[in-house]
């Protein structure tokens, strides 16, 4: 169905500042019935803030929002939701102690003193989930879900309301291609019912696949709105970044040196079994697979977060047992985890404090932390990663998602690791920052660092790796040079038997 001309959601002159930071500056937006409206912009451009204002989570300083010509000013979250606006949150807002079913319907129970029937609730949840083609046990607690599963619950929750406009703030950041395909199917269904979708993503190919219209924000300001069909990728990037961007994947030369790490027969019951590979200095080993294939579990074992049941790990040719992350760091292993909110940074700490957390002991002079030594390292890292913050003292929790990720990477780099494990390092990162991280990987590689790259984005995996290891259901399926890898071939190996 073609998008109609009827505007369901209208935003005018919206501005919002946080403690001196201008997150939105006179922004406008028109969303039409049944269209997929992509909202694009770099990390920190103000996309999430705008969406949070729409659903009533954040109050704007000035400006107004109309849903079907009715102003939403002064309405509560509940009232706005009841008028037909729902949202998939970037931060995955689930209550860890509640079950999937309870989270799905949270805030939508009939009355405050109403009677709850968990059996009925579970049945309804199971129905909703299966209608969306999702395989999730409604009785599982949210805290036990992987982040991909959490994201699926968020999606199911937003879609199961009878919303007229659904906001999706990076709904696919934790999903692999298969689930993305499921989501796109759902979005098509929504369009057909006349539901408008505001879609935020940093994945260009998704925009061209489903967006009808694209609005671009830059530094909190409205830049332009165009039909998606009229926008080439390079033009879109130019609008977002304000300049042309060179090639995404930098040219690198493979100059693999001595073996840094090797594992043989590594097994952890219930997660993966019999994994063997080696990584060399100056080499990028890619690790691919579908969601739940066991890649994160391997990384956790290598970093001492979990213990293997059997198998050996050698570092620099020495057999080692890595019992804690501290030991891993001492060996020279760095890890950027996939769940940056849970285990990546300390929200209340500043950018500075987070950056130096893993290497603080190197800044000690006469028993005290030297502010100048620390400050110098921090300034260097902020510049080299182009971290966008009001300064080194800004709390990391206030940064946009992409900049938070840069802080986490910066922290690992400051500990000068010889092997870096990157688990979905570009999740939620804008195209410009992505290019920077790719250049960073190339630079680290050139400096002789060994890199284990886990990614669900196949182009990224192919574009950056020297060799690629494919896992399916915890088993090693293939280990091939990147030159022999194509997306089709990798997918073929990754599919469960």
């Amino acid at each position, binding site marked *: 169905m073609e998008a109609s001309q009827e505007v369901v959601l209208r935003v005018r002159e919206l501005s919002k500042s946080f403690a001196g930071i201008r997150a939105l500056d006179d922004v406008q937006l028109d969303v039409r019935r049944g269209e997929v409206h992509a909202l694009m912009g770099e990390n920190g451009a103000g996309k999430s803030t705008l969406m949070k204002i729409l*659903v009533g*989570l954040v109050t704007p300083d000035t400006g107004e929002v109309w849903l079907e010509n009715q102003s939403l000013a002064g309405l*509560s*979250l*509940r009232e706005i*939701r009841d008028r037909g606006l729902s*949202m998939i*949150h970037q*931060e995955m*807002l*689930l*209550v*860890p*102690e*509640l079950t999937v079913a*309870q989270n799905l319907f*949270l*805030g*939508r*129970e*009939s*009355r*405050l*003193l*109403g*009677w*709850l*029937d*968990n*059996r009925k609730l*579970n049945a309804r949840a*199971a129905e909703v989930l299966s209608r969306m083609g999702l*395989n*999730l*046990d*409604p*009785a599982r607690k949210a805290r036990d879900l992987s982040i991909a599963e959490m994201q699926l619950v968020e999606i199911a929750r937003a879609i199961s309301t009878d919303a007229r406009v659904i906001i999706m703030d990076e709904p696919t950041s934790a999903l692999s291609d298969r689930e993305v395909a499921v989501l796109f199917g759902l979005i098509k269904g929504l369009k057909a019912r006349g539901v408008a979708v505001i879609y935020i993503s940093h994945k260009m190919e998704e925009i061209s696949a489903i967006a009808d219209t694209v609005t671009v924000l830059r530094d909190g300001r409205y830049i332009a709105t165009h039909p998606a069909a009229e926008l080439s990728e390079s033009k879109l990037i130019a609008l977002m970044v304000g300049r042309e961007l060179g090639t995404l994947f930098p040219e690198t030369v493979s100059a693999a040196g001595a073996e840094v790490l090797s594992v043989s027969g590594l097994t952890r019951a219930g997660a993966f079994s019999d994994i063997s590979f080696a990584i060399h200095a100056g080499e990028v080993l890619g690790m691919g697979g579908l969601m739940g294939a066991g890649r994160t579990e391997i990384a956790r074992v290598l970093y001492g977060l979990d213990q293997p049941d059997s198998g050996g790990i050698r570092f620099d040719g020495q057999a080692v047992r890595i019992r804690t992350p501290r030991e891993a760091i001492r060996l020279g292993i760095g890890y950027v985890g996939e769940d940056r909110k849970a285990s990546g940074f300390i929200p209340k700490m500043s950018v500075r404090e987070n950056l130096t957390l893993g290497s603080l002991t190197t800044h000690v002079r006469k028993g005290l932390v030297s502010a100048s030594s620390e400050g110098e390292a921090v300034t260097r890292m902020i510049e080299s990663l182009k971290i966008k913050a009001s300064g080194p003292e800004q709390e990391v929790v206030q940064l946009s998602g992409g900049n938070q990720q840069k802080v986490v990477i910066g922290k690992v780099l400051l500990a000068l690791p010889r092997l870096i494990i990157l688990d979905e390092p570009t999740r939620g990162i804008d195209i410009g920052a992505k290019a920077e991280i790719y250049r960073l990987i190339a630079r680290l590689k050139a400096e002789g660092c060994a890199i284990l790259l886990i990614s669900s984005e196949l182009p990224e995996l192919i574009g950056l790796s020297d060799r690629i290891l494919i896992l399916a259901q915890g088993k090693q399926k293939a280990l091939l040079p990147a030159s022999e890898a194509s997306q089709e071939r990798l997918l073929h190996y990754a599919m469960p038997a």
Partner: protein
Amino acid sequence: MENNVLTYRAAGPLLSLRRYGLLLAFLAVCIGLSLTTPRFLTWQNATIILTQVSINALLAFGVTFVIITGGIDLSVGSVVAVSGVVAASFAHPDTYPVIVPVVVGLLTGLAFGAFNGFVVTSSKVPPFIVTLGTMTIGRGLALILSKGRPVSNLSDAFNFLGGGKVLGVPMLIWILIAVFALCAVILRKTVLGRYMYAVGGNEQASRASGVPLRTVKMAVYTLCGGLAALSGILLTSRITTGQPNAGLSFELDAITAAIIGGTSTSGGTGTMTGTLLGALLIGVISNGLDLLNVSSYYQQVVMGVIIIGAVVLDSLNQTKKA
């Protein structure tokens, strides 16, 4: 993730006890005491323990609600005193019918709770400070209202509430059972209860889901104040006097019972069964130590050791299953 897992742990019974370890620890203490003193495992002693536990348990139920939402209430001990004194002032013989002191006492506690809830929801002052403030204020008011003197000479009808028996079982035990059931139902079977877990588990997510944070918090503090008042009225009736310094440091016992029972101070978890068991554990230990005639100084040491020990046992058990 086959379909059959759908039935797994599905609805959960009303009185589910997730912490078998605690039950085990409790039973271990009981068996230990039964073996060492024949006076422990008697019907009469069981009645005594339950009666003694009831006052603390009522407070602990209220505190459990609050802690589940991620808050804390230090004022319950003082509310026991104020509402007890207020109730006593209306409970002299041949003045008002017995319903009057009960209602007035309850209203006093509800007012304190509502005040706590109001300040917590409309300022950024941490609940610890708010309720510490009302704790001090409450104690002062109890002394002012009673002029520092116990309020005595209470009617028989009033003294029956906490001192009488029905069908051979003390009133306090009946009330304990009824209030426990009510609180368990609120927590597990009503939307309000679900929202308590949600607010304590992730306040931001709850807000984004449209959970009425303000209402939920107002509700838990008010409930807690009401339960403290009930506790205060029953205490007053049991000792036949409204005492301005009743309930000193009761808040600590109540919080302890809740936490032993598995309520986490960071919010989002806790059950009424656990809290009841926590209160019972404390009651049984203190009863047992008296029965064994352990010197009062050593009692404290033993009490401390057993409490830590019981919770260690409980946590070992949880770890194994996790």
